[in-house]
């Protein structure tokens, strides 16, 4: 449930920065993200109503800003990068290959996903959900991980034709076109595109 809510906010945020919020834009989002239809409709109406609200309302509560600061400090003081966990961390080479097989993708594509070499926003949501299911993680954890900065992930030791390096991220489309996938695998992944 949390994962669903998290992705709902990201979809609304993406909608928020669209140049226009007319019927065509809303319709496009409704088609792409039918699972968030009610949220999108509610938000589109909020945008209409916001224009009539007075943002200079008198603030009545006390200490809310201080409590927000406390919450910031608690979150930022957590050691390390615990807010983002690596759902691939526990996979040994055999489990990694097995995961690629279950997802019906090549090891190369899975490596690119693991190393965050693909722009997270371009990865189809349905694929992220499948990946999360197979990893036994929530979609939120996987999304958080995929959205983190690209890096070489240590602790993995399997043969690869790709030299490990922090490289410029590529789009999902570009990644599947260049990951030695069979035509049927490629078609299946293209069909998942948002």
């Amino acid at each position: 449930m949390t994962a669903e809510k998290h992705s709902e906010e990201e979809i609304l945020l993406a909608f928020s920065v669209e140049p226009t919020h007319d019927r065509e834009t809303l319709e496009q989002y409704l088609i792409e993200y039918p699972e968030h239809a009610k949220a999108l409709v509610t938000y589109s109406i909020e945008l209409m109503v916001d224009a009539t609200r007075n943002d200079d309302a008198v603030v009545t509560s006390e200490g809310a800003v201080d409590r927000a600061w406390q919450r910031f400090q608690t979150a930022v003081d957590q050691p390390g990068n615990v807010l983002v966990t690596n759902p691939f961390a526990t996979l040994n080479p055999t489990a990694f290959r097995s995961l690629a097989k279950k997802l019906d993708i090549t090891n190369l594509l899975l490596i690119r996903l693991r190393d965050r070499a693909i722009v997270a926003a371009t990865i189809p949501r349905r694929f992220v959900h499948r990946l999360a299911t197979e990893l036994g993680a929530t979609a939120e954890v996987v999304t958080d991980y995929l959205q983190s900065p690209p890096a070489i992930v240590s602790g993995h030791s399997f043969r690869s034709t790709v030299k490990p390096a922090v490289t410029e991220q590529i789009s999902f489309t570009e990644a599947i076109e260049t990951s030695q996938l069979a035509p049927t695998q490629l078609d299946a992944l293209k069909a998942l595109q948002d």
Partner: protein
Amino acid sequence: MPEPLKRKKKDGTLYERPPEIEAWLKKLEMVEVAERLRQFATLSTKSIDYVPSEALIYFLRRAWANGMQGDFKEIFCILMKRIEQSLCSAISDSRMVGARGIREEIMGRFAERIAKDCKGRTGLLDFYEIRFDKAFSASRTSALRQIGPTVVDTVSLGTDEDDGLEISAEVEAAAADFLSSDPEKLDDPAFRLALTAAIDCLPDDQKQVIGLLLQGFQIDSKDKNIMSIARILQCDERTVRNRRDRACKALKAILQEEMHNDC
């Protein structure tokens, strides 16, 4: 030169700030830090000295990246005051039970988002540097769906009590008249503003139907390629019509009362 955003669109290109925000950033980068902080402190959106919140987000992130903790905290607090002010309008005590707690939770969640951004999550605040008010409205809407009173649908979708309630022909005719017979009236900015404010007073199910109608969606269609209101809300077209009719009746009453008060 302001640093570019890091977040990428689905097509792989980077998101960009609007030109007017870029202009603000360039102007503010030329100003001494103390003077900049003084300018940020203006809270009234109507003031000519008001600096857009998109710029505050930009300098908040720069302050963190440069280790300027004092500046960071100052901008953080100004930003939160602005957010609280905006939330007091959208989630006022008179409109929602437990409004204060809901407002604080939304502020807290935003504070955590800032913390995640500080800890290196790529582009987590980028949307707020593009269109702060709309982006924050998105976060607020999503949070309210989880923790607000609207989380419980008072009327379930599909074959429910909505379908059983018969709306009189008189009300239906009034609704049709209200929404379609005077399109020029809907184009009148003053009327539309009053109408939009009145829509905000409706229950959520009716608000959704009226909102979609005003955006040009049709109630129902046999063509599966057409995105109709019944399809979007996953309910029977009779339910949609009933909600529309009840909403129109309520809107008419609200607007008539307003006109009466204005007189």
